[in-house]
């Protein structure tokens, strides 16, 4: 068991995931398995929003866990474990996106691939959805695609900041650590991202759809 500094001890006491990672550092295979099980859904959720594909997200998630394992010997908790973990995830995702840009491959637009219709701007598809799809679940799915498409129009940093803030409930300070910028820059980044999302989704927001439906996240069942 390696000795811990005061900062590390403080985080280890506060954050159970830090304790888990410290066990991984001490070559506890069961702890690593536990870590994977605990973070896999959250990680794939974040990565799928960053790279836009569940399959790719799974591959990247595996890569992230492998990197975590390789980095175990050098792990010295200086922050919450999730901050350290998603910093690695961010690096892996950014590398993948860079590779993707160098070797672009044609992908069907999500709206085209799902509906087989011409790709539409979110607000256009929203009008289509609200006017012709009475089924609640169908409408939710359509809205999900609209919001997904709106999110995809943000740049990578904005997208990451939004999903970390929204789904991981990370503070500006933590997001700043993950992305590697200042908290002030995160404040500006998130403000621009939310303004952009507001502009894209304005039509929907200004309707009363939100009022008559309790929004519940749609959990996509994984492929067996």
């Amino acid at each position, binding site marked *: 068991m390696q000795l811990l500094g005061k900062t590390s001890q403080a985080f280890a006491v506060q954050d159970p995931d830090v304790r888990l990672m410290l066990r991984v550092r001490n070559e506890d295979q069961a702890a690593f*398995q536990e870590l994977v099980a605990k973070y896999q*859904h959250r990680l794939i959720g974040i990565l799928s929003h960053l790279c836009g594909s569940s399959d790719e997200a799974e591959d990247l998630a595996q890569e992230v866990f492998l990197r975590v394992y390789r980095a175990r010997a050098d792990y010295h908790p200086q922050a919450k474990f999730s901050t350290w973990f998603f910093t690695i995830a961010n690096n892996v995702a950014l590398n993948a996106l860079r590779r993707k840009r160098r070797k672009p491959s044609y992908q069907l637009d999500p709206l085209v691939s799902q509906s087989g219709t011409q790709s539409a701007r979110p607000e256009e598809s929203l009008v289509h959805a609200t006017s012709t799809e009475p089924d609640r679940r169908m409408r939710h799915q359509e809205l999900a695609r609209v*919001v997904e498409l709106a999110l995809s129009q943000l740049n990578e940093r904005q997208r990451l900041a939004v999903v970390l*803030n*929204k789904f991981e409930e990370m503070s500006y300070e933590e997001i700043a650590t993950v992305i590697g910028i200042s908290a002030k820059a995160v*404040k500006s980044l998130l403000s621009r991202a939310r303004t952009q999302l507001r502009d894209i989704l304005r039509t929907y927001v200004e309707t009363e759809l939100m009022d008559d439906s309790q929004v519940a*996240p749609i959990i996509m069942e994984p492929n*067996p």
Partner: protein
Amino acid sequence: MSAMQPNKPKLTPQEQENLTAYLDHELDDAGAEQVTAALSRRPEVRKEAETLRKTWEMLDYLPRPLAPKSFTEHTLTRLSATKGILLQQGMKWRRYAIAGWAACLVTAAASGFWFTYSFNREPDVVEVQAPETDVIPVLEKSPGEAPKTTTTETKLAKKDANAQQRIQDAQRRNERLAKQFNRLFAEVRKKYNEEEEDRLIKLSRKGGLPYMAALIELAKKYDVPLVDPNESGGTPGKNNKKTGKNTSPGE
């Protein structure tokens, strides 16, 4: 389509940032008070706050894909495979590291020995060879063996003994040479004139080869034998340049 165009912003970018941070509970007390005041006074700020809040809620529609059930197992399998590769790479690198360290140690040992030997070896002996006949004595370095680095103590000891022997031989030759020149000077001074005396004295202050050459020149001039005929054991022999050993019969 015009309805979809965003309205012109009524808030400054700074107000917009503060409003977003306020909704995220990221503003300090002073900033939060300012936004609260703006919300109570300005309807456009209230509307913007509500729009942003609803937009944020819309993100709940985003699909949240879950990892497949086999994900953990696949990850651990991939980890095992990677560990095997890493282990092989590690072994390969370990071999390189061992070879590298061995090479470094040998080099360091050789360098250390060479430096030690270079600084501690005997100084080059300057021998003044006594002329056997009418040969002008010359300064000549002792042709000692070139230093070689060995790793055995036996060879080192042998070399040390040889060096000591060479030093002693050189000292003996120097003593004999000095004796011969003293005799030569004693004989020559009986015969040289005043001018030659001055010149010889001047050269003797400088010493070395010019003095000896002048002395031999005068000895020849006044027929003083260069070699003492009474000296038993003969004359200093020729110096064997290859071995550095004196091969004279008396040695």
